[in-house]
């Protein structure tokens, strides 16, 4: 036991997942099944040239797995196959798988496939002595040789036990058959019914020990889930978990390799617009490309609108966007978004936007996941919107849902897809009930919430977290107008955060105050003006008075002067009248003084 464990450890080191680039042990060749996911779990397929046991309860998909193994072998890998049916006739089998898109008749006609129906009816057979199953060997050998088959399926070989007497002989012969298959070098699938406490009813696992795969079909809460587990795989490592798988008409069987994705995806620092310019600013430029964004909020807070804006923005950039809706139908979304001014219909017409509306309860969780995978693979979008994610929460327990989300997010990241998840929350608390901790998986978390003030409900938007970007810590008011969503700074002041009419009232009050102040200033300016003009008037009056006085004075002066001249003249006149003497005297006087 210890030794084998050590061996296993060694193998893991050599061929484990950590050395993906290296082919896992060249000594163990594998035959790819071509079944989506199964080759990843088994690291290459089933053991080539050896039998593999597929066991499970009725209706779990054993036959289908076997058929798909052969069909894909024949069509994709050039390996013809033989299907030996113990339960269904060729006709029944052909009809049963036609719905899954397999054309057995065509393959048979092209000699790629042989279907041999083995009819055993216990009541028709009498046993009289010793026998062996050489007839089966001959039959199988002939079928294999007729088309050079490389693959064989025996479905369900356990029917032999009920069809033939003497299980001891049957047991010994089956043991021989499996050995013989190995010498034939064919890769075989043997199916077996699940037994009580054992993998198969007849204990086939004792004989087929190279690879055992267990299929399971469970119904929980009215939703069925199929699971696959590689019980053992001799000489190879394999994923040991239970992997959900599904059967549908688009691709047959698909297994979901839960652990095949990792955290080693490329990261981009490119920003993509959210479609709302103010939100871009809050995030410092938009979402990171390839990041996952959660938009959560209570009912009617505008989650869908935020998502629609992003879809619109993506399409404007010429990128494809996949919109997975689980609450509203396509038409309804288009109509509702048109009402807020986002017209998505042209993008749908252009083929840039694709809606996929499915009720969550329609499928199990893994079916949804697989459908999403398939849609993404097919459509190759750059942006994915899941609206809302909350609807899926009811489909499984927390662990399952978280596992699914992790897968989806990893898958999106690997493909550089920006994913928006909307989440309907119950409301109440600030950080609304952290259902299943999906928040921790998200890179950016935008919370939309109702702000109830003064008997009004208004929408507020916050960026709660955003990895790797300096984002705004501000609460903005989120308005849905007829030309899209608008973000308005909420009033922040001494009276707290105000939104809606309270904000409007506050704004009005402020406006009034401002007006008053303005008027005050104008009043003062007018007073100043008035004072200035009064002063100037006074000055003018004084000047006028001065002018008048000046005139009078000047008049008086000139009168005085003219009087003086008159007086002098009169004196001269008087002198002349007193004769020359006096004139002479006057002249002498004038000489003497000179």
């Amino acid at each position, binding site marked *: 036991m210890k030794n084998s464990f050590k061996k296993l450890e060694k193998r893991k080191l050599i061929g484990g997942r950590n050395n993906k680039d290296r082919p896992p042990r060249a000594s163990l060749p594998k035959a790819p099944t071509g079944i989506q996911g199964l080759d990843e779990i088994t690291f290459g397929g089933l053991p080539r040239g050896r039998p593999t046991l597929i066991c499970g309860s009725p209706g779990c998909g054993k036959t289908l797995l076997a058929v798909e193994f052969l069909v894909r072998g024949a069509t994709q890998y050039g390996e013809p196959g033989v299907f030996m049916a113990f339960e269904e006739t060729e006709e029944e089998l052909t009809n049963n798988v036609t719905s899954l898109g397999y054309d057995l008749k065509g393959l048979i006609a092209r000699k790629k496939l042989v279907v041999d129906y083995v009819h055993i009816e216990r009541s028709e057979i*009498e046993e009289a002595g010793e026998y062996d199953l050489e007839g*089966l060997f001959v039959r199988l050998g002939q079928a294999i040789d007729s088309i050079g088959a490389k693959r064989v399926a025996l479905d369900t070989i356990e029917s032999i036990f009920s069809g033939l007497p003497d299980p001891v002989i049957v047991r010994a012969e089956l043991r021989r058959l499996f050995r013989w298959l190995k010498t034939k070098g064919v890769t075989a699938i043997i199916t077996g019914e699940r037994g009580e406490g054992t993998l198969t009813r007849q204990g086939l696992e004792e004989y087929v020990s190279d690879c055992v795969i267990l299929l399971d079909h469970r119904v929980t809460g009215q939703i069925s889930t199929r699971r696959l587990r590689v019980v053992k795989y001799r000489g190879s490592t394999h994923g040991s978990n239970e992997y959900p798988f599904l059967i549908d008409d688009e691709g047959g069987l698909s297994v979901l390799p839960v652990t095949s994705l990792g955290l080693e995806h490329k990261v981009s620092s490119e920003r993509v617009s959210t479609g709302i310019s103010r939100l871009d600013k809050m995030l410092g430029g938009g979402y990171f490309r390839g990041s996952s964004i959660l938009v959560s909020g209570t009912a009617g807070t505008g989650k869908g609108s935020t998502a629609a804006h992003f879809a619109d923005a993506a399409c404007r950039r010429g990128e494809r966007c996949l919109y997975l809706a689980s609450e509203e139908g396509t038409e309804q979304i288009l109509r509702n978004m048109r009402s807020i001014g986002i017209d998505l219909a042209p993008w749908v017409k252009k083929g840039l936007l694709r809606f996929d509306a499915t009720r969550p309860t329609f499928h199990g969780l893994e079916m949804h996941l697989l459908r999403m995978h398939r849609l993404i693979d097919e459509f190759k979008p750059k942006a994915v919107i899941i609206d809302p994610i909350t609807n899926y929460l009811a489909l499984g327990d927390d662990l399952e849902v978280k596992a699914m989300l992790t897968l989806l997010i990893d898958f999106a990241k690997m493909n550089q897809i920006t994913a928006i998840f909307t989440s309907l929350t119950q409301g109440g608390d600030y950080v609304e009930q952290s259902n299943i901790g999906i928040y921790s998986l998200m890179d950016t978390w935008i919370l939309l919430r109702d702000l109830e003030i003064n008997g009004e409900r208004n929408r507020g938007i916050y960026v709660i977290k955003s990895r790797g970007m300096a984002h705004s810590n501000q609460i903005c008011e989120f308005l849905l107008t007829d030309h899209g969503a608008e973000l308005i700074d909420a009033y922040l002041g001494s009276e707290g955060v105000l939104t809606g009419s309270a904000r409007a009232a506050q704004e009005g009050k402020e406006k009034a105050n401002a007006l008053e102040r303005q008027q005050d200033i104008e009043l003062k300016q007018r007073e100043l003006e008035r004072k200035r003009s009064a002063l100037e008037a006074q000055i003018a009056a004084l000047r006028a008075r001065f002018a008048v006085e000046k005139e009078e004075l000047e008049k008086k002066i000139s009168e005085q002067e003219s009087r003086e001249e008159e007086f002098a003249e009169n004196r001269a006149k008087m002198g002349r009248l007193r004769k020359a003497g006096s004139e002479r005297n006057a002249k002498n006087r004038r000489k003497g003084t000179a």
Partner: protein
Amino acid sequence: MSAALKSKNSKAVRADSWVLRLYVAGQTPKSLTAFANLKKICTEYLKGQYRIEVIDLLENPQLARGDQILAIPTLVRNLPQPVRKIIGDLSNTERVLVGLDLRPRG
């Protein structure tokens, strides 16, 4: 059934009213034993009314599929109708007789 009854009642039976096919795969000891046992039973119970065809699947492998043969040796009663199958080396004579409807079941 009627054919079987007729063969029992009337004395004028043709040699091929019983057609028995023995499927073998090569000359194995079991095949040889089966053939010997069959021969013995036929001479004893179906004197002059039978024909035995031995089919070797190694020579005609495609017949295994057509006649729905799994076990070797298998004895198939093609005639009289209906078809009966007996597997084994026919060493248990009683069971062979039951299988051929020469003896009532039970």
